[in-house]
């Protein structure tokens, strides 16, 4: 795809990119802290990844190979349009293979294939503030972060246990970064939480509507909040993938007829395709 030269490289103007880049550096220096930034109007609606797109635009170089996933899939509307946006405005090479990508923008999943040094994972974040549904006032949540006052979050998890018998939060599961900031990992399934910590890649989080950027440097200590008698558990549907037979990947449940028939397939399409190419077959494979 050739670059549409009417736009500056990667769409944003240079001053905006400098502002975002400064926010990314402060985010990396204070892991888990939400750095305010002057989010711009993007040519897509809020909720479609405007935060992730702005972070990607500030990070991309012409030498990068860019991958976009939407809940693990490379071929959904959101992923296809963001990938094509940067093909047009930055002229970068794109890929669907996790191993080949240098910058990966993601909506709500971490790829199954372990990331490596040199890669950057950019998350699209809807609500960056983990305390927002417990305390709506920004002035108060900011104070709670500065005072490390996170008791309310444990009360919320405890109420889960008293109501359901276990911690029922299954996505956007709160984590504590380096023993200091409680952070929202974006609405990834809690299955992905263990991959946040000790990751060799740089992880950047962008929330466009809420105007926040935060970051996890590589090899950062990230702990999912839990209790001694109710330890954190990374859960998934208890089935193998219907197409590739993997019993260790995160699965989507797909309804396949009007009679209640269903199948479970890998949410990470690149991982599933690669396994099928190696000859792995699940029970529903054609």
């Amino acid at each position, binding site marked *: 795809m050739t670059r549409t030269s009417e736009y500056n490289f990667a769409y944003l103007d240079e001053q905006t990119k*400098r502002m975002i880049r400064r926010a990314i550096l402060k985010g990396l220096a204070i892991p888990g802290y939400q750095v305010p930034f002057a989010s711009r109007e993007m040519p897509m609606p809020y909720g479609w990844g405007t935060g992730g797109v702005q972070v990607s635009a500030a990070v991309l170089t012409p030498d990068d190979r860019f991958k976009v996933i939407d809940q693990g899939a490379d071929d959904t509307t959101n992923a296809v349009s963001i990938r094509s946006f940067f093909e047009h405005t930055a002229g970068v090479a794109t890929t669907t293979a996790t191993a080949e990508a240098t910058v990966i923008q993601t909506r709500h999943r971490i790829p199954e294939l372990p990331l490596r040094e040199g890669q950057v994972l950019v998350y699209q974040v809807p609500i960056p503030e983990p305390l927002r549904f417990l305390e709506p006032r920004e002035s108060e949540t900011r104070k709670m972060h500065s005072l490390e006052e996170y008791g309310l979050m444990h009360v919320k998890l405890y109420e889960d246990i008293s109501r359901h018998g276990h911690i029922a939060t299954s996505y956007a599961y709160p984590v504590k970064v380096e023993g200091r900031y409680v952070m929202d990992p974006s609405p990834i399934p809690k299955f992905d939480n263990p991959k946040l910590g000790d990751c*060799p890649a740089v992880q950047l989080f962008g929330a466009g509507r809420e105007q926040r950027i935060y970051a996890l440097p590589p090899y950062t200590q990230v702990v999912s909040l839990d209790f001694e008698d109710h330890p954190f558990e990374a859960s998934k549907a208890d089935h193998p993938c219907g197409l590739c037979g993997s019993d260790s990947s995160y699965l989507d449940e797909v309804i396949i007829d009007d009679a209640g028939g269903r199948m479970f397939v890998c949410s990470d399409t690149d991982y599933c395709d690669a396994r099928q190419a190696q000859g792995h077959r699940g029970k529903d494979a054609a």
Partner: protein
Amino acid sequence: MQAERLAGGFSEPATQSSHAFRIVMEAMARPGTIRPIAGARAPAPLSVAAGTVLLTLCDGDTPVHLAGEADCEAVRAWLAFHTGAPVVGPSQAMFAVGSWQALGPLSAYATGTPDYPDRSATLIVECPDLHPAGATLTGPGIRDQAALSLPETRAFQENRALFPLGLDFIFTSGDRLAALPRSTEVR
């Protein structure tokens, strides 16, 4: 004089600054790693690395403090032409550049507030040399441990004690740089 002021910028600002930023970002994300960086040529005494960092991160929104020998007419004119950054004293600076001796005392710079720890200065420290030996570094971004030739250790230990407040450092020497965020433990 005029020529020196106008020269030394990026010939391809969008792509050169994107490459330079990735190098600075990887350096800040992996404290202690030393990376080559190039693109800009600032007047003496600024190094290629310091000049490139200034062009990549500074503009009219970022007050800059020029410390010691860096505060000369040539550097002021170059910075004004290429970035438009206002030159200020240490207490108002978002960025500061100079030798370690000239930058001190560190207490003069903004370390952020408990509500907004990001409102803190980034110091670009010009060093005679950079090599992966000397102080031992541990913390976020470092798998086991790293080593870096720091001008001293005590100041960085005191800075770490302020966390999440504190200063962040970029060390430059010739066409190479390394970084030390406030989160790094120095021994």
